[in-house]
């Protein structure tokens, strides 16, 4: 059972990384325009620049 000493902190740390990521995305305003984000991916603004 001594393996738990490593496994539990690892599990919690991974979870915390996910949580921190979510809180960061929330603060960065990524949830403020959910419909727009889905549509922005369709615009070809970057195509002209690449050529």
């Amino acid at each position, binding site marked *: *059972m001594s393996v*738990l000493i490593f496994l*539990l902190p690892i*599990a*919690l740390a991974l*979870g*915390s990384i*996910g*949580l921190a990521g*979510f*809180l960061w995305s*929330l603060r960065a305003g990524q*949830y*403020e*325009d*959910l*419909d*727009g984000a*889905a*549509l*922005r991916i*369709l*615009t070809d*603004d970057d195509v002209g620049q690449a050529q």
Partner: protein
Amino acid sequence: MDVSADLSGYVQTRADGAAEIDFAVQGILCGTCIGVIERAIARMQGAPKPRLNYTMRRLHVSWTAANFNPADVARVLAPLGYTVRPFDLAASEDEDARRSRALMRCLAIAGFAAMNVMLLSVSIWAGNASDIDDNTRDMFHWISALIALPAAFFAGQPFFLSALGALRARSLNMDVPISLGVSLALVMSVFETATHAHHAYYESALMLLFFLLAGRVLDDAMRSRTRAIVNNFASLRAFQAFRVNTDGGITEVPVKALRHYDVVLVRPGEKFPIDGKILSGSSEIDDSLVTGESSHRRVEADDPVYAGAINLSGTVRAEVHAAGNDTLLHEIERLLETASSGKSRYVLLADRVARYYAPAVHLGALVTAIGWFLAGASLHDAIVAAIAVLIVTCPCALALAIPAVHVVASGSLFRRGLLLRKADALERLAEVDTVVFDKTGTLTRPEPGIANRAKVPADLLAIAARLALSSRHPLARGIAVEAGASSPFDNVVEESGRGVRTIVDGEELRLGSPDFCGIDADYAGDASRLSVIAVRHGARCCTIQVKQVLRPDAAACIAWLKQTGIGVEILSGDNLHAVNEVAVKLGIEAAQGGIKPAEKVRRLEDLRAQGRRVLMVGDGLNDAPALAAAHASLSPSTAADVSQSVADAIFLGDRLQPVCDAITGSRRAMRLMRENLWLAAIYNILAVPLAVFGVLTPLLAAAGMSGSSLLVTLNALRARDIDEHSIKQSRKSRRSQPQISAPLTAGVGT
């Protein structure tokens, strides 16, 4: 005329020196608009950074260069077909944004904690069935406690604070049993952990919090989106005033910056921003939004004018007589206060249920404890059984039953062009048995329509419509809307009060008053209700008669209401003759005209005294007190600001269909809410005896709780389709629907 716009009141300066401004945008149809708008802004002088929020229909522009003028944004976007207005991020909306972010944070914490604790709990359950040793189990329990206690303390705040508020006001709401259940589950778990017991309930408490928060987040997202769209309308209509400065220059200023004895310039097509009197110039004005009177009034020097009236034909200068508290607007607001205080505060269904539910649960737990104790159990076992009752009855399903239906139903009404503004609107709309309509702007379209369409050659009409797009005149706007024009001509010159003209392929095109186009007007019938516009293309020309027309589906909507057994009445400020004409056309027996705002309220009170639940549908300033006094109220999105601010819901577009949808949708939602309450009650009836007799294990309780929540949520999803035959009708009438409303509803609904 050189006009400088003053947007300084809307510009905010950030800490890093950049300036920013928000605009409400109208005319967004689909995803392509994002790129079109942002590219157009980014190309402007001063390299501003645009960001369009597609969900909220807002444009945020930030810039650092001094040579960028935010007033140019409107000028750049207008030819592309977008209307923008600077948007004052209202304090209330700022508060909303903060609250939704806080809710999301709570949801994230609860989700993180619930997942990790569940991981540990499943291990314990599996271990309990096989060979877990006591030390490992205790360690797992203590780790769970370490995660669960702070997480629940943080994520439970929305419920704890609301429950505290209710208790302080000596009442019970749904959050009281929720808070009690969560905190008792946690306290009991710590107690069980300390006494090396086999079971703890950390995961139940966290799962409950997670589910409930998910419901609240969805509800909040739906409502803040609705509110944003409603606020956009308000700022799109919030009229700016053109102040004549002492040096003769003209500045565009917000209405609230005007002072007594300032002079404002009002051009044709603009609204009077103030109460006051005409100083110079003469014009016809449309008072319909103020008084409901549909025929136009001629004003000259020294005549009084009121805020909200539309200037139709000539440019006038008016002196501000009443600013702020002395306006007619304020007078109506005072009437409003009295009217709304007459309507007793409506108690939400969820809270009404909680009023009976909470005491019943607490009593049940107490009886369980006493029962076990009397039957010879130890004090510890008796208390454990009582707490199990509290946990099992923790109103997970009950608390989801109503909000879930609410979210789904208001979402589907939103897609149909109905924006619910108040939390209890669905419940009150569902109880309606009488609908009272205003006439002008409600049963009739907000813009005038073409009366002699058959006599106008199609190509001339198309030209007229495209020309009309360049005019500020309200009659022109009516033509553009009805003929469905979308692209204006280039280089159009507007001659104030007369018309617009341009030259295409060497031929002159004109739209305006008949003598502007060089022909005699052929007035037919009642001249005060009919306006004549002429269009000229080279040598050809013809006249277009413009008058108030009914909304395209008004007759179908009224017929449907009557067929459904709902009483229909018209109360209008317009004269009796005009009201009767509409009433006869629509087959409405009860119609009254020439009614003052106070009389409308009195009529509604009479109806209420007869035990009727009245839905008031109106748009004018004169309807506002009646909207506040009615059991439920609807306003079109073109309504006066005051009316919208008191209405329970706002409908978009040109059709009355949303009124029917509001009734079917809310009735269906209420039926589902009741079904859900029954489902939750049945779950409790089955689970509570098991808990009372002490046979419910945590696993069973968790399964039962999730199962019932799932069932209730799935049932709530049925609120999505508002069927009935009304939809078939709307498909048929969509063909005759003018274009402007289609993008409006479609755009909002995506």
